[in-house]
């Protein structure tokens, strides 16, 4: 029985002809778009994670603490939680840093009547809270301390990148969904066309007592086979595009988003894409309606 169902499905696939090929191409197109967005989003995500590790929060103090109270203050700051490291920068250290950054124009700083720079504490958040939301909460907690004048830094731009990634993922999902719908409709059309061609067979099958599952399985398999072929085509297209683009992209990445390498989809992700294609084809095959008498 299994060989019968399989052979009928393959016979139907051959009969689908150009419409069947169109269905395969459309599924491949939608999966390529979906996979492409996935790939880019994946690498953007890695960049965001990496930048998350470099997030710093600067806590400016109202007054420079006396040396005897410094340890106590640092412990108090650490006590707000979610902090990996602290580094105290005294007023003198801040001025020294300013001069160093001014280089040959460091004389300007010498003209100042007094050191206007505040003492500060450079805070490195815990990796676990180095997200836009986590960092925001940390900034609020630090700002509530009475010794603190102002809290700066954080993850505004990482937040922007994160928003861009979300927008990108959303776009990918919308484009993928639209293309997936089109692919399902094409598979449905291809399968319906085949069902129309084989309505006599279906009539005979029903008349001799075939169960509905025996009648339906070949069309489901036909759709699945189309989806499977399409997802392999999509993966191959992505691989080729990746292989062609990476040598040009990689030299630019460290200077822009800070990544050393662009990664391709993992084997599990590639398998998920193949499963999605097969599922798309199956849905199209199941939605097909064929008319047969009896």
């Amino acid at each position: 029985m299994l060989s019968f169902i399989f052979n009928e499905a393959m016979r139907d696939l051959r009969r689908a002809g150009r419409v069947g090929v169109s269905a395969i191409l459309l599924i491949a197109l939608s999966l390529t778009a979906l996979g492409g967005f996935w790939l880019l989003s994946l690498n953007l995500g890695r960049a965001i994670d990496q930048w998350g590790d470099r997030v710093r929060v600067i806590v400016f103090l109202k007054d420079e603490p006396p040396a005897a109270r410094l340890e106590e203050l640092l412990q108090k700051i650490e006590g707000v939680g979610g902090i990996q490291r602290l580094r105290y920068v005294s007023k003198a250290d801040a001025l020294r840093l300013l001069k160093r950054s001014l280089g040959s124009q460091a004389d300007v700083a010498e003209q100042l009547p007094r050191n206007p720079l505040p003492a500060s504490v450079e805070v490195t958040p815990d990796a676990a809270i180095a997200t836009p939301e986590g960092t925001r909460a940390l900034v609020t907690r630090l700002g509530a301390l009475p010794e603190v004048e102002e809290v700066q830094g954080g993850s505004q731009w990482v937040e922007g990148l994160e928003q861009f990634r979300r927008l990108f993922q959303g776009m990918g999902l919308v484009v993928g969904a639209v293309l997936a719908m089109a692919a399902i409709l094409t598979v449905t059309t291809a399968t319906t066309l085949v069902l129309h061609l084989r309505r006599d067979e279906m009539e005979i099958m029903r008349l001799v007592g075939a169960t509905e599952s025996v009648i339906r399985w070949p069309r489901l398999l036909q759709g699945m086979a189309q989806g499977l072929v399409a997802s392999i085509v999509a993966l191959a297209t992505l691989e080729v595009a990746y292989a062609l683009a990476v040598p040009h992209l990689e030299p630019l990445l460290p200077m822009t988003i800070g990544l050393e390498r662009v990664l391709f989809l993992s084997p599990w992700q590639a398998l998920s894409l193949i499963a999605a294609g097969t599922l798309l084809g199956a849905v199209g095959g199941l939605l097909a309606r064929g008319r047969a008498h009896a």
Partner: protein
Amino acid sequence: MIRLEHVSKVFGSGPARVAALTDISFNVAKGEFVVLSGASGAGKTTLLRMLYRAEMPSEGDIEVAGFDVAALRNSEVPRLRRSIGIVFQDSKLLAGRTVFENVAFVLRVLGVSRREITPRTFSALKAVGLSARAQAYPHQLSQGEAQRASLARAIVKSPGLLLADEPTGNLDEEMAVEILGLVKDIWARGTTVLFATHQARLIPQLKRRTLRLEAGRLVKDEG
């Protein structure tokens, strides 16, 4: 094998209402050969279609091969149909398949093992004298041969009941007699036969019990 009690069939409603069959009752015993006669439009095909549940009766009870046809769930219809062989006026052979494949198709659909399919298919083809044409395609067959192939397809699953819906309607008299002879051979091997025909000349040759339909009513049951 077949029992109908006060069966009626109405198509449409209101002014478009057409009574195809009215208050039909009869029995066909196991192993019997019964002719269903009547002019075109008398209701023969509708009656046969109700027997294999392609149509539902509007009223009355139908029992076929132990199945209460009207009460059958859709999922149980295949079981009813497996016990019935059906031949039509047109052979309904599948154009892209050889005679052998057309007959074997039934067994493949029903999940018969590959080992059994070939001998059973050849046995059915032999029973209708078509073994030599096993590899021919439908378009290469004469009408008589096509109808014989259709008969082979109906009997290959060894049904207890054969419903023949005007199988000789498109044939000349010589071919019709030949097909009739084959149907009688099938009946002689123990299959119950309900043979529908509008060809009045054939009926005396059959010398069997005859049910006559006129305008959807059973007007005669004799023989």
